[in-house]
Structure formats: structure tokens, C-alpha cells
């Protein structure tokens, strides 16, 4: 059952229905913002500089207040350096890049990352300069009451998982009473960091760490002018450690802290590379979290887990109408498929028509098979019709194609699909297109053969000679997407060409034969082949001029007429159901196509891209399923949507491990 289940739709609905918030351990309030506080904790007034004894002693590593040899507090505030704008922009960009790399899981719309000190959230003795990154103390620094601190602009988002910032001590000032750490919003800024609740700090004068208490505990070395001190918060296990000049000083018991008096310090929130290798630390935790996920006990009772997985896969296959695959899968895993096979096939047929751009037929078929569906859902019908209009412009809709009368045999429909197959990420919402590639090479009149042919987009090993035609006729083709099946491919394909069942539809795309057996189509050989033709097609299409409605005058008239009907329908809809901006915009965009001489390269030209058929197709499919009381989302997509939502919820609840587990990591 290879290939298909790999293409999981990523457009899962974002309704994480009722995921309970993890309740277990409510951690400490996660609202701590890093506040490097410049805290001046003034020592006894410095004795007048006495004549120093001749042997200059090496700087004594003594902790505690030393008579200051330095400048009076605050005197060393540097003049703000004028920054050229270009340099600034460059720095901005660099910062953005680094933050994105360090904290990919953070949604900055919701929770912005700290980028500088806050000019509002600081004590008055603090001066900021250099884009609010440099902090200097300008108080008297005589008594502990002269302490001052500053916080960063934003709290640390939990989705960082691990957050890190550094501070460089530009000048230790008179006494070197500086602290760095974290404090919650609202903590008094006229205090030393670490003294109050929800504030934590590492102090330079004695190397002690303060955890919400006026008494520090011995923690690390002292620090002084020239040192770079870092603070790392681990929001996964709620710990924190500091670094000095790139060396980790070790964990502090579950605490985060900060504040200090210092004279001048420069902060680095990611503006520059960090001295400490924080990314290495993050790597370790990413590995840990992922190992934890991989080894998560699933409580497997007698294959329950496996059965569930199989059910999910099966339901996914059924949902998207891969019925041969679904059947085979169900058979080999001994399951039953809830939906009737005929029903799956019906849905599949409709989807295939939509994806082929044959909207008229798709609508017709839907109305036949599900008579009341579109009547009850006028907005859906409208959307389908708008799409039909677009396909008319494209020249792919059956109504214009039969009018076009151009070598119908050679008309192809959905050449983009190989691309989406070979690189699922580009067209993530459907695996469907693989099967639907191959459609009519005849005009609508051939549809009678349809029933017998496509039991699943998997084209029952009927290959066709049409390649030969294509090869010879290609010069005369003007149908936009087609134009292209080239020599090399047709040679390959020729080898498949054997019996042709003229009753069936003709499939002109090389993929058709390859998928003669529904669950084989993921094999690499085919991949390769398709990729090849993809590139070639693109080259070709740029050379051939595409024409409106396939170039037929009659078709253009039909299209214009259809447009008028659409307009009328829109007005009627508005009268009946009230204004609907979505519909309005949809119609406007579609009509805009006509304003350009070459709609394909116009600003609204992307509507013509076959990939745009997919959302319509998916909505229609869901609507049909709903009428059968079946889920409009396959459980697999739902599970993925829930997982994504769950991660978002974790981020909002302050659970840091969400930083290292993204759904994408598990979609290979």
C-alpha cells in the first residue's frame, strides 16, 4: 500500500475539537520577561583614592565590595553612536533571520519576541541608547534605594522552548553591582533583581544567584567589565542557567532571575551571534523531545494501535476516493469499508471531472447522482459555476471544448498533476490528482464510456495509442496545457501501448498507464518519468500561445453568455440569501480574467492554474459526504489538525516542549 497514503492533506481543518488542556502540573506563571536590570546597589562611599602601594596587585578575585577604582556611577554613559540606516536595516534583517532560526515555533503575530529593552518598563535611573540595547545607570548609587532595573519589550513566548539572551558588560562602573536575569511583568523596578517574587538574578559583584529572595546563594564566578553574561531559560523543564563568556555555569534549581546594578551593558537578543553555543543546547533538547515522542507508550492492547492506524489509512483512502487502493488495503488488513463501493466511485468520478476542469459535466453528474445536494446548497453551486466559467476561459470545460472542434483527440486536461505527485508539498491537499490526470481526449461525447473505464482513477491497464497521435499532431495543438507530450516520453509510453479499448475514455497522460494498478503508482520509476515530462511541459507551454476558450469564436460566445447567467445567478443569490462577500469577490476575480489579453499571465491568472481546482473539488467532496452522514474530513486530516491545534494550545499554556515538535517533522 505504498505511495498514496504519503500524501496527507495538510489543509486539515483547524478545528481541534475539544482537546483538553494538559492538566497535570501547572507550572509557574510563564509570563516572565527577561529584564536585565541595572541595579545599582551602592557600596559605602569609595574612600578617596589613596596613594597606591607600588606593586600593582593583580586584580583580586575577591567577592564583595571593593573600593572603586573606576568612574563615579553612571559617568561612563557613552554618546549615542549615529547609525547609518542601511546598517540598521541589515542588523534588523540579521536579527529576524536569527530569531526565526532559533525559535521557529514562535508565532510572532501572537507572541512577539523581545528585541530590545523597553523604554517604558524601566526605572528612571536607567538610560537607554543604541536602539534601546545599551543600558546605563545614571542614578547616585549611594544606597540600595538607588537600585534600578529594566525589562525587555516582551515576555518570552513559551513556544521558544529554550530562550537565550546575552549581555556584555561595557563598563562595570564604580562597583560592578550588576545583575542579569528574569523578572515577571509588574515587579518593582526600583529593586534588585531576584529580591522580589517572580524575579531572579545573577549578580556580578559576588557571583551569587538570587531567587525571589534578598539572600543570594553562591552560584558562579563574579563578572566584570568585558565579560559576556548569558541567561538561558528552559521552558520545558522550567530551569535556567547563566553563562559567562560562552561557558555554561550550570543549572540553578528551577528558577529564573535577574537584576543588577551596573553601569553600562549591551544586550544581545539575537542581533549578533551569541558567544555561548545555544543552538547546540537546543539540538540536545530537540533530540530529547523527539525521542520522548518516538517512545511515547501507546498502550498497545492486542494490536489496537495498529488497527486504529489501519482504519485511519483506510478512511483516508475512501474519503478521497482511491477505491481500488482502499479495497486492496481493506482486504489485506481485514477491514470493512463503511461506504459502498459504488458511492465511492461516484464521488471519484465527480472529483475527476472537477480536477480535469470539466466543470459542466461535474455539475451535471452531481445533480444526477445527488439530486438535491446543490439545490440545498446554492453557495456551493455558485462556486462550482464560477469555476466552470474559469475553465471556459481556460478552454477546458466541456461546453467550450465541444465547440472548439480542435482535434479533440489530443486534448489533455490536467498536466500539472505529475508535478504535484512528484513533490507532494506543492500540492499538498490531494493525492487525488494522481489518478485524475488522465482524462478525456475526446470531447464530451465520449463520456458514455466513462463508467466502464475509471474505477478509481486507476485506469485499469488500458493503455492507448493516443500517444502516437499526440506526437504527430502536437504542432497543431493550441490547447494550453497540453501541447507537450514529447517525443522522449511517447517513446517510453509506447512500450505500454498495447490493447486499446475504444469504449473507454482515452487517457493521454503518461501517468495513466503507469497506474494500471492502483497501489503501485507511488513507485519511484514513475515518479521519475513524470517529473521529466513535467519540466518539458512547462518549457513548451511558454512557447506556444494560449488562446481564450481554446481559440474558438463559438466557445467565446458561449462563455460570455455563461458569464451573464452567472451574473444573474449571483444577483438572485443575493436577493435570497443576503450579501455574501466571498461570492462577490469570487465572481469579480473570475470576470477580471477577461480584462486581459493574455489571462494566463495576468495578475489574476493564477485562477487558471489547475491547482486551483483542488479546493473546489475538496469542498464538493465534503458536501457529498455530508449528505451521506459521513465525516466531511477524513480522521487522518482531523488528527493532524488536532495535533497542530494542540501545539498552539501548548504554546499558549506555557508548555515549552511544543517548540521542538512540529507536525511537519512527522510528515515525510
Amino acid at each position, binding site marked *: 500500500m505504498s505511495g498514496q497514503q504519503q500524501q496527507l492533506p495538510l489543509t486539515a481543518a483547524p478545528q481541534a475539537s475539544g482537546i483538553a488542556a494538559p492538566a497535570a502540573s501547572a507550572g509557574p506563571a510563564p509570563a516572565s520577561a527577561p529584564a536585565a536590570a541595572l541595579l545599582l546597589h551602592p557600596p559605602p562611599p569609595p574612600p578617596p583614592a589613596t596613594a597606591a602601594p607600588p606593586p600593582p596587585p593583580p586584580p583580586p578575585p575577591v567577592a564583595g565590595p571593593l573600593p572603586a577604582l573606576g568612574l563615579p556611577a553612571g559617568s561612563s554613559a557613552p554618546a549615542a553612536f549615529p547609525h547609518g540606516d542601511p546598517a540598521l536595516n541589515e542588523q534588523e534583517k540579521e536579527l529576524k533571520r536569527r530569531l526565526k532560526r532559533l525559535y521557529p515555533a514562535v508565532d510572532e503575530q501572537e507572541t512577539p519576541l523581545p528585541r530590545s529593552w523597553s523604554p517604558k518598563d524601566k526605572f528612571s535611573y536607567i538610560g537607554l541608547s543604541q536602539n534601546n540595547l545599551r543600558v546605563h545607570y545614571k542614578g547616585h548609587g549611594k544606597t540600595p534605594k538607588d537600585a534600578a532595573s529594566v525589562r525587555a519589550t516582551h515576555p518570552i513566548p513559551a513556544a521558544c522552548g529554550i530562550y537565550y539572551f546575552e549581555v556584555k558588560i561595557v563598563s562595570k562602573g564604580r562597583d560592578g553591582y550588576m545583575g542579569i536575569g528574569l523578572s515577571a511583568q509588574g515587579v518593582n523596578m526600583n529593586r534588585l533583581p531576584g529580591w522580589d517574587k517572580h524575579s531572579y538574578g545573577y549578580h556580578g559583584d559576588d557571583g551569587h544567584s538570587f531567587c525571589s529572595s534578598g539572600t543570594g546563594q553562591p552560584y558562579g564566578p563574579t563578572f566584570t567589565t568585558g565579560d559576556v553574561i548569558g541567561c538561558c531559560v528552559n521552558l520545558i523543564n522550567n530551569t535556567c542557567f547563566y553563562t559567562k563568556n560562552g*561557558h555554561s*555555569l550550570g*543549572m540553578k534549581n528551577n528558577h529564573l532571575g535577574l537584576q543588577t546594578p551596573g553601569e553600562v551593558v549591551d544586550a544581545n537578543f539575537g542581533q549578533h551571534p551569541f558567544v555561548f*553555543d545555544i543552538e547546540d543546547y537546543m*539540538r*540536545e533538547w530537540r*533530540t530529547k523531545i523527539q525521542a520522548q515522542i518516538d517512545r511515547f507508550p501507546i498502550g498497545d492492547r492486542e494490536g489496537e494501535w495498529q488497527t486504529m492506524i489501519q482504519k485511519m489509512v483506510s478512511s483516508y483512502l475512501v474519503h478521497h476516493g482511491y477505491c481500488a487502493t482502499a479495497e486492496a488495503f481493506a482486504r489485506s488488513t481485514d477491514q470493512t469499508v463503511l461506504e459502498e463501493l459504488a458511492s465511492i466511485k461516484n464521488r471519484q468520478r465527480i472529483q475527476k471531472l472537477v480536477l480535469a476542469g470539466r466543470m459542466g459535466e461535474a455539475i451535471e453528474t452531481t445533480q444526477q447522482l445527488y439530486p438535491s445536494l446543490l439545490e440545498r446548497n446554492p453557495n456551493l453551486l455558485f462556486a462550482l459555476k464560477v469555476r466552470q466559467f474559469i475553465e471556459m476561459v481556460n478552454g477546458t470545460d466541456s461546453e467550450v471544448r465541444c465547440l472548439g472542434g480542435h482535434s479533440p483527440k489530443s486534448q489533455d486536461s490536467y498536466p500539472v498533476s505529475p508535478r504535484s505527485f512528484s513533490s507532494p508539498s506543492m500540492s499538498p491537499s490531494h493525492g487525488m490528482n494522481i489518478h485524475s490526470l488522465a482524462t478525456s481526449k475526446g470531447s464530451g461525447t465520449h463520456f458514455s464510456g466513462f463508467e466502464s473505464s475509471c474505477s478509481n482513477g486507476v485506469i485499469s491497464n488500458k493503455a492507448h495509442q493516443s500517444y502516437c497521435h499526440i506526437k504527430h499532431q502536437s504542432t497543431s495543438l493550441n490547447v494550453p496545457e497540453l501541447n507537450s507530450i514529447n517525443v522522449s516520453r511517447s517513446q517510453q509510453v509506447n512500450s505500454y501501448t498495447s490493447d486499446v479499448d475504444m469504449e473507454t475514455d482515452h487517457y493521454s497522460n503518461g501517468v495513466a498507464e503507469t497506474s494500471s494498478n492502483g497501489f503501485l503508482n507511488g513507485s519511484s520509476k514513475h515518479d521519475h518519468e513524470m517529473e521529466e515530462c513535467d519540466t518539458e511541459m512547462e518549457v513548451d507551454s511558454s512557447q506556444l500561445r494560449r488562446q481564450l476558450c481554446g481559440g474558438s469564436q463559438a466557445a467565446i460566445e458561449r462563455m460570455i453568455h455563461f458569464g451573464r447567467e452567472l451574473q444573474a445567478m449571483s444577483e438572485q443569490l443575493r436577493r435570497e440569501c443576503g450579501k455574501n462577500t466571498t461570492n462577490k469577490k469570487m465572481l469579480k476575480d473570475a470576470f477580471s480574467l477577461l480584462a486581459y489579453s493574455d489571462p494566463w499571465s495576468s495578475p489574476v491568472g493564477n485562477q487558471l492554474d489547475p491547482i486551483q481546482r483542488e479546493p473546489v473539488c475538496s469542498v464538493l467532496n465534503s458536501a457529498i459526504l455530508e449528505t451521506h452522514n459521513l465525516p466531511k474530513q477524513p480522521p487522518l486530516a482531523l488528527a493532524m489538525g488536532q495535533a497542530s491545534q494542540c501545539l498552539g494550545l501548548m504554546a499558549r499554556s506555557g508548555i515549552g516542549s511544543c517548540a521542538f515538535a512540529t507536525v511537519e517533522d512527522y510528515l515525510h
Partner: protein
Amino acid sequence: MSVLSEVTASSRHYVDRLFDPDPQKVLQGVIDMKNAVIGNNKQKANLIVLGAVPRLLYLLQQETSSMELRTECAVVLGSLAMGTENNVKSLLDCHIIPALLQGLLSPELKFIEACLRCLRTIFTSPVTPEELLYTDATVIPHLMALLSRSRYTQEYICQIFSHCCKGPDHQTILFNHGAVQNIAHLLSSTSYKVRMQALKCFSVLAFENPQVSMTLVNVLVDGELLPQIFVKMLQRDKPIEMQLTSAKCLTYMCRAGAIQTDDNCIVLKTLPSLVRLCSKERLLEERVEGAETLAYLIETDVELQRIASITDHLIAMLSDYFKYPSSVSAITDIKRLDHDLKHAHELRQAAFKLYASLGANDEDIRKKIIETENMMDRIVNGLSESSIKVRLSAVRCLHSLSRSVQQLRTSFQDHAVWKPLMKVLQNAPDEVLVVASSTLCNLLLEFSPSKEPILESGAIELLCSLTQSENLALRVNGIWALMNMAFQAEQKIKADILQGLSTEQLFQLLSDSDVNVLMKTLGLLRNLLSTRPHIDQIMSTHGKQIMQAVTLILEGEHNIEVKEQTLCILANIADGTTAKELIMTNDDILQKIKYYMSHSNAKLQLAAMFCISNLIWNEEEGSQERQDKLRDIGIVDILHKLSQSSDPNLCDK
């Protein structure tokens, strides 16, 4: 008896089938045997006893055997080697190694791989002498050539190399056969096992080997320098084994001088990684290796010692190494207790080693170490542990800490560390003695309160015996300790030293080829000849020999320091009351003093001046005569000259 025979009967069947005339049946027999022995040590032992090995070897070597049969034989032999050490010994006795090495010449890759796998198992066993790999000079080049054959040959050969490379000789052989170039590119192999074994090879090749290390720093693999690759392997998301081994490579390269100690890859990568390996989260054996490697890395560099001492609370972290087996494990979990017990010694010795390195140079770090919980008790206990390794590293740690004057006066005294230390010195192997005796040197320093009790416990005798050791380091330490002991000592001690040492030994030491020994012996003499009564007393008994020795040294080819020290001895002698006469009556010596007074080296001049000054000191009896005599030989003239020179050493006369 009957049980045994039953068992052997079933095994006998397997052996018998090896002798079947039908080669096809033999092959089936070997395959069945293979399946029977897997994971069954008893079966393996039985088959060996029943003589399966020679037959298997015979089949393996037989050119007429089919390749399949030969390969299966190698597989079975490999399986047998996986058993107990006795199995390996039996295989070695049957000369399995030459047979397997011979097999490597076959063109058949499968067979080669089977032989290599078996060789790998045998060579990684502790009972196999690694020399066996080097006896045939063609083996190494052939193995190098086989490195390109498959990922299995790569894995096995690298593993053989990394186990059989012991010491500089082996390193040189492998290096000369292009090991570095051949193995370097394996570091980018897609197979983890190959990468890992290649990495291990480099760690053993680089250990204490500047030649290999210097080569390694410049080797490029896929456009990247080897140290860069090692740094990548240090990343925290890599397996611990890989982090540890690459840290070893970088450490060894650094210690061999190929990487600077201030290089970022050492300071910011290797060192922090090693500290992390010491943390509680790691396995016990990883913590042991981490600590030992770190100890080696920082041993001689004070800056690295300082960084390590503040990283992740390393000093406190190490104190956890002494908590095995923990009291919890004893009760709750027998398996865990067994595991802990096995590693407890290793953990302790590794911690001591690392403490020793950390405290080697920096007083603040020493203080921090000693302030760690129960530190001194742990050392004292360590000194009397049964494991030599623990004792040795405990002594090292003590030695490192004994460089602190403050600690000598406080913690060392409080814990009476001299007692266990003196015990260690009795009958210890040389390597322990060297460290222990140099610790003793520090404990015998004049300000050390341990000095007295050490003397009382018979240190003199012990130290005197050390000076007769073959081992140079022990001679130096012995005489050094005696010198420290004699410094400002009382008459009794000096006499004891002289007596214990015997003049004969003293003069033996004075003619020692090592300048360190000579210097310390002179120092001892100088310390012995301090206060006046002691000088006269010693000179009256040993004057003749001492004067002879002094003359000899002054005449010999020695460096300035030695001569200065000797002149100082003369000056001391000149301070004696009766001893003076020994100089005054010795014209030869007087001439020498005169010579050194006009020597170009100021230190020697100064020392010679001391002699003269002591000889002519006015307040003493007979000074006038001595002055006259000295004037006669022209010393006064020199003094005059010197008094006009710039040096302020003209305070007399």
C-alpha cells in the same frame, strides 16, 4: 560425571560430522554447529574441549574446501571466540590468528569479512597479545588495502587497529602505513559503526603522539578539516559515545601540541562537552572516561583549569562520584548495587584525578575543592583503599592540594593526612611512590605543622632509602624532602639525616648525573651547615670529605646555579668558628674564591664575597691574621676594585 558425558555426547555429534567424507555433509554439519553454539557458552566450551577448533581451522585453510565451507568455518570460529576468555585462549593456542590472516588473502569478499569478524573478536579480547598483529610485517599493509572493500571490512579493521594500537611503536607502524589517509575518509561513511570505529582509531593514534597529531590537524575530508569534523561529532544531539570519542581525539591532539589550548574548539567545544559527560545524567562508565579525559586536557594549563572550575558546577558535580554504591541501591536493587560496586573504584579514582588537575595551579580552585563536602575525609580514605588506582589518584589529588601553603597549615593538619600518606609510602610501587614522596616534600616544608609527626614516624630512613632508588624521580624527591627537612632543623635531626644517609651516599649523590639531584644535595648540605655550632660539629667529623667535594664541584663543568650553591656552602663553612680554618689552610680553595670574586657573573661574585666577609669578620678571634693572609694572596686588591663598581655589595672591609 554422567551429566557431563551426556552433554558431551550431544556435542560430540557435531564434531563427528566435521569428519564426514562428503563435503556437502560437512558443510551442513558446520552450519548446524553454527546454529547450536550461538549464545551458548556451555556448548562452545564443549566443542572446544572435543577438539572442534583444529578441525575447523583445517577446513578453513584447505584450498580444496568450498568457499562456502571455509566461510562458515570462520563464522563458527568467530562465534566460539565470542564466548569466555578461556575460549579465546584455546583458539589462540591453536594458532588461529595466522590461519585467519592467511584467509584475508583470498579474493572472496564474504570469506574475508568472516575472517575479519573473527579476528576482530579475538583481538578485542583482553587475553590476546596485540603484538600478534605486528609479527608479520605484511599484515598491516594488507589490512590497509582491504579498507576499501566494504563497510564491514572498514568496521572490523578499524576496530582491530583501535584495540591493537598500544604505545608509540604501534602508532608509528600504523602511521607509516598510511593509517591517517586511509581512515580519514571513513569519518564521512554512511554507516554509524564505521564512523565510530574510525573515530576510535584516531583517538588511539593521536594519544601522546605529536607526529600523528600534527598530521591530523591538516587532513581534509570532504573539504573540511579534521578538527572541524571532530567538533561536529561533539554536538549534543550526537550519541554520547561519539561525543566522548571525538572529545578524546581533540584532547589528545591538544596535549600533543597540535591544537592550541586557547583554540575555540578546545575552550568552547571540547572542554564543555567533557564537563557535560561528567554529569549525573550520563552512565557511570561515561562519567569515568569523561572525567579522566578532562583531567588530562586541563592538566597543564591554568586557564583551562579556571574555565573548567566554573563550568556547570563541576567541582560540586564531582563530589557525586563518591556516592556509589548509594545507600538506596544497596537495599532496593541487587543488580544496581552490583553495577555500582563495579564502577565505584573507577569513579573515585577518576574524580581524584580531575580534582588533582583542577587544583594543580590555582589557589582559589584548591580552596573551592577543599571546601567541597567531606573532601579531606575522602582523600584520607582514598589513600588507604585497596585499589592501587584509587590510592595513586588520591595521592595525586593530595599532592596537587599540598601546593597550597594555607591548606598545609589548616585542612592538612586537621585531618592528619600525613598518617595515611606515610602508610602509602611503605612498599608502594614506584608510580605511587613518586607522587607520594613529592607530596611528602611539601608536607615537610618548614612551615608545615605536619613536619614533626612525619619525622617521628621514621621518615628519614624512608627518604634516605629513596635516594638510592634507580628511579630518578624518586632520588630527586627523596633528597628534596631531606633538604626541606633539614631546613632550620635542630641538631638531632641533622645528625640523624647525616647518619641515615651516610657520607658515602652523600658523595654518591653529589656525583649524580642529574643536575636536579645535585642541586638538592647541595641544598641539603647548605641546610645542614647552618647555625655555627652545627657547622663546626659537622665539619669536625666530615670536613675533609666535604672540602673535597666542594673542590671537585668548583672545578667541574657545572652550571652557574650549582656553583653558586657550592659557594654558599663555603660561605656557611666560613661562618663556623673552627670550620673557618679548613678554608684558611686550603690555598686551593682560597684561590678559587679569589677567582670567583672576579667572575663575570654577579651572583657568583656575590657568593664569593660572602665567603670572604665571613672569613674576615672583625669581631672574631684571629680575624686579623686571616685578613693578612687574604691580603697576601691579593684579595684586597680585588675588593678595592669591586668597591668602585656599581654593585652595592661592598658593605664590608
